[in-house]
């Protein structure tokens, strides 16, 4: 069982690596952010699998923390994207 769950964790990690290509490829910033979210879910899954294999329940807390703050990061991105969409870049007097 342990080896199977480790294998599953490895498989999800491989998917994370592929997701990384999506981050590099884009093409738009929104797509990159989506890939990052996917990697976030992958990280949560890996942690849950590792927590079960090693029998360390506190690792689930780390997964919980990641899940919570992944939303937060997504909101940060959406905030910047939305404000650059509404206001033209030269609306505020810069430089």
């Amino acid at each position, binding site marked *: 069982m342990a080896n199977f769950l480790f294998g599953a964790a490895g498989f999800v990690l491989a998917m994370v690596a592929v997701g990384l290509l999506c981050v590099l490829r884009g093409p738009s910033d929104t797509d990159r*952010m989506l890939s990052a979210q996917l990697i976030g879910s992958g990280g949560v899954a890996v942690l849950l699998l590792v927590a079960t294999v090693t029998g360390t329940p506190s690792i689930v807390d780390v997964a919980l923390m990641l899940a919570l703050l992944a939303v937060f990061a997504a909101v940060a991105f959406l905030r910047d994207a939305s404000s650059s969409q509404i206001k033209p870049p030269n609306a505020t007097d810069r430089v």
Partner: protein
Amino acid sequence: MTPPFILEIAFVILILAIAVGTLVARTAFTAVLLFMIYGLLIAIAWVRLSAVDVALTEAAIGGGLTGMLLLGAVARLRESEGSGEEPGLPTLLAAGTFCVLVSAALGTLVLSRPEVAPSLAPMVMDNLAQSALGNPVAAVLFVFRAFDTLLEKVVLLLALIGVWSLAPDRAWGGVPGLRLYAEPSSILVFLAQLLPPIGIMIGIYMFWTGASYPGGAFQGGTVLAAMWLLVMIARLQPVPAISLRRIRLLLVVGPVIFVAIGLLGFVVADAFLAYPANYAKPLIITAEATLTLSIGVTLGLLVAGPPDRMLQP
């Protein structure tokens, strides 16, 4: 070679690839995004190193708060992207050689071990019962090296003062220039109403469980800060002016109570930050609870940045 070990090799290669990506990414946005993913993977690395307390801290800081801070900076710097010249080939080569040497030296040094690795773990375990805490890392943070922890909070406050002091004169004491969502969005408002109650519960859980299991004041405070920022970004709550008395009070209440308990140590025990035998746990919990609150407010304001406008009536 066992299957987990092969997996770890792949994992380490992945981490290093992302680190390289962070440095060479074409746009600043991609670089920051990769850095956030890097933080996530580092948290998993800490789990593999059996340091769950550190993993929690890294997950909270590396992925969440640092990400928000840097993404905000990227959005503000958007026009200046691509400026700047890479140094020439000789410089690159020299720097590369130097860095490879540093890496090689570090790798060799860390592993060229004395036969028995030095460790303070037995000492910690011997004295753990006296600290009334079940989590050895929390015991080190709040009992054996409490002075470090106190100074760490002071560093946070100093950083905040540093950030504030970069405000233009006209905005001093005003409202931090946190970037908000462009216009009120009902979906985001829903998220900002739904998430904070759960988040605050998780924050309190982190601090409470920290006494016996991995967790603690700092991890809890980070979650509180994230929730507070979320509410402000969704425009549910206004960003407070930094001159408000209650904000200042919240910022210092944790460190002040910690210092007070430390001074109490002179009277009832025999040294600064020594806890009297039977009251150790309640005192530590009190200090931690107020610290969690103060850390939350401090981190939130650190991310919010320096004030850039006066309070509008």
